[in-house]
């Protein structure tokens, strides 16, 4: 054992609770093996308990991931940031897959302008896939654990779907200016995306989420196919009147989802 003992000024700061956590733990460790220093520290159970609580609060707390910290800095409440970043389809693998899909669509369209509709048609399917994989017993390993909590069900699905939709939308938006088309047409996927995502969420109240996503994806492809067959152009379903319809559908379905989620 060394002959070192806690100096008076250090002990006073320790007793006042003004030491930083690491130094306070060093003092604690020394007190644990030095009876002389322990005798110099007034022992008061309440004080000791409060000290430990302060130390625990300092040392035992979560370390947010970089994306979660980014959201917090952006003004998103801490608990919501944690919910958003813990979405299964917010994993690195999923985001990489979305980036790859969007990049492939852009490259293909730039190689051959006839492939532009493929990007526009595929963009609304991306968030649907993400939503399908964001919630449910088959895709979430902790689903059974979460399912008995008050936030599970429509509220949690809505939160996770928002995260998925935001990522897919931002990535598609970044890609749009790179497309060989006028700005209006390049962004023509946005309203169908929103309508499809809100349709999927509305339907998930009655069907398992993957089936709801599959059904809405099917409806979207049916709309595209019908439009293409009737008018002879795959771009027909991206015209102004159709966009108005998608916007209206997105609004109505979002309102419906909101009502269900707060019920």
């Amino acid at each position: 054992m060394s002959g070192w003992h806690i100096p008076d000024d250090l002990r006073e700061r320790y007793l006042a609770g003004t030491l930083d956590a690491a130094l306070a733990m060093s003092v604690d460790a020394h007190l644990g093996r030095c009876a002389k220093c322990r005798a110099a520290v007034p022992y008061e159970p309440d004080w000791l308990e409060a000290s430990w609580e302060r130390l625990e609060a300092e040392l035992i707390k979560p370390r947010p991931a970089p994306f979660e910290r980014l959201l917090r800095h952006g003004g998103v409440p801490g608990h919501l940031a944690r919910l958003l970043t813990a979405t299964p389809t917010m994993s690195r693998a999923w985001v990489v897959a979305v980036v790859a899909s969007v990049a492939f669509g852009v490259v293909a369209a730039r190689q051959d302008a006839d492939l532009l509709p493929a990007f526009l048609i595929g963009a609304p399917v991306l968030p649907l896939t993400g939503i399908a994989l964001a919630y449910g017993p088959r895709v979430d390993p902790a689903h059974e654990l979460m399912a008995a909590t008050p936030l599970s069900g429509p509220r949690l699905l809505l939160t996770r779907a928002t995260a998925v939709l935001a990522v897919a939308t931002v990535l598609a938006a970044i890609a749009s200016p790179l497309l060989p088309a006028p700005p209006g047409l390049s962004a023509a996927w946005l309203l169908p995306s929103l309508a499809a995502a809100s349709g999927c969420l509305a339907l998930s109240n009655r069907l398992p989420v993957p089936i709801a996503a599959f059904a809405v994806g099917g409806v979207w492809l049916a709309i595209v196919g019908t439009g293409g067959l009737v008018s002879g152009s795959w771009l027909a379903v991206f015209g102004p009147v159709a966009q108005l319809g998608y916007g209206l559908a997105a609004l109505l379905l979002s309102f419906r989802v909101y009502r269900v989620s707060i019920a």
Partner: protein
Amino acid sequence: MIQIRNLSKVYGHRRALDGLDLTLGTGVTGLLGPNGAGKTTLLRCLATTLAPSGGSIEAYGLNPADPVQRTALRRRLGYLPQDPGFYPHFTVFDLVDYVAILKEMTVRERRHAEVRRVLAEVDLTDQARLKVRKLSGGMRQRLALAQALLGEPDLLILDEPTVGLDPEQRMLFRALVSRLGESHTVVLSTHQTEDVAALCERVVVMRDGRAVFDGTPGELAGVAAGRVWLSDQAPAASQVFWRTADGRYRTLGDRPPSADATAPGVEDGYLMLLRRHEEAA
């Protein structure tokens, strides 16, 4: 108070629950039964993670069939599933904190204090910063228990909570659950009759989706009264018996030659009960 009336759950052609009636109040109730008896299905229905095919559950005046009342009931329950999945990349603290958020604990300081409390309850404070994937089976089970304790729920539903716990942890678990049972409703399923004998003031034995016994552990042991024997010679092969640590043979059923009667335990009563039902079926 929780009232379960004529509860049924059908999977295809199999009836996992078959018109079950049960009333649960404050205290620890243990569910015993062979695999497939319907224990987990019942607990999942109680935990609102599984919708029954028929019948009703009413807990604290709330009907989980109604979405709004279901959410209200979820605010009052803690659930440890039989197979709790985890996010392996989360730390222990992160995971419990995440469940606390799902339990609508939005004020960070208060939530973190609650997370630390439940981790201390299950003796996981020192592992708080470990990744879940690095935990042993017993630690994972304690982690699952910790999240169920968040918010001191009125109704605690524990599906095989002692699986993977070492003897010391089991003692800690028993102390914790018996303390909770003084003022809360605790329902647990187990295959460990010792846990039932040590913990539960009431035991329900399930078989084929029905409750075939409802009473105290003492009453369950009493089912085998006068039917448990100790002998030095091995009984006939047709009888149910096993060799004990002291080298004698413990027989359940008819008296073997020159055997001594012995006091039955909960396990004897449980085995005798199941045997009678199998013979009757």
